[in-house]
């Protein structure tokens, strides 16, 4: 009887710790899930940029920041994607999570972008997408479903991302 009580006590203590752990962490979005709506002011002219407006197109949604070192490598890669695949229906949206617009603009002065740019100082979009790291990119298909998630960016990822983008473009 006493042993049973000890076991019950231990189980409830474990459950309490588990509940705390679950409350402080959230699961990032995974492939197969619907892309959440996300609207942010534009950085490149125009008023706002919204992921939902791109339904029917393949979207490569990238979250970046001026302080994010790998983003310096991902920008030339995304310019290449834009150059090669924009004609086939690919739309690249890069949303900055900078708190300060000047920081984002300074980054863009050194790393020019040929794709759509947004700035979400309120961090609503990164919270909705639960980014696992910086940068993170989401490949969203024509039906608005996430097809791939890439956390971080290494130059070795480029070929795999390009293959996934081509696959999404050919699917429908």
């Amino acid at each position, binding site marked *: 009887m*006493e042993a049973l009580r000890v076991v019950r*006590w231990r189980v409830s*203590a474990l459950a*309490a710790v588990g509940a*705390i752990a679950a409350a*402080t*962490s959230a699961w990032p979005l995974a492939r197969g899930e619907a892309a959440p709506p996300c609207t942010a002011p534009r950085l490149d002219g125009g008023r706002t940029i919204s992921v939902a407006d791109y339904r029917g197109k393949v979207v490569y949604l990238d*979250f970046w*920041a*001026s*302080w*994010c070192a790998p983003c310096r490598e991902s920008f030339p890669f995304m310019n290449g994607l834009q150059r090669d695949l924009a004609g086939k229906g690919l739309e690249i949206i890069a949303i900055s*999570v*900078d*708190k300060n617009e000047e*920081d984002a603009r300074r980054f863009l002065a050194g790393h020019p972008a040929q794709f759509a740019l947004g700035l979400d100082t309120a*961090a609503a979009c*990164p*919270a909705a997408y639960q*980014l*696992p*790291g*910086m940068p*993170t990119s989401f490949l969203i298909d024509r039906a608005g479903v996430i097809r791939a998630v890439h956390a971080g960016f290494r130059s070795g990822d480029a070929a795999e991302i390009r293959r996934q983008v081509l696959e999404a473009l050919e699917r429908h």
Partner: protein
Amino acid sequence: MIASRRVLLAALAAVVAACGGCAVVQPWERGTLAKPSMATVQPPHETAQKLRTYNAKEGGAAATGVGGGGCGCN
């Protein structure tokens, strides 16, 4: 047994209360942490300058580290 359970309960309550003071810094909120002034190690040029000054004050090169034989000739 009852007393030890109370102690455990108090410890668990303390842990739960302490968790309220923890904040998860999300990956997209790390801009401030990424500033150079937040680095745990100082920039290399600054460290080199400080070491140079320290070496001069100590009257010899590598005053912070090189082991010697006690001859006073470093």
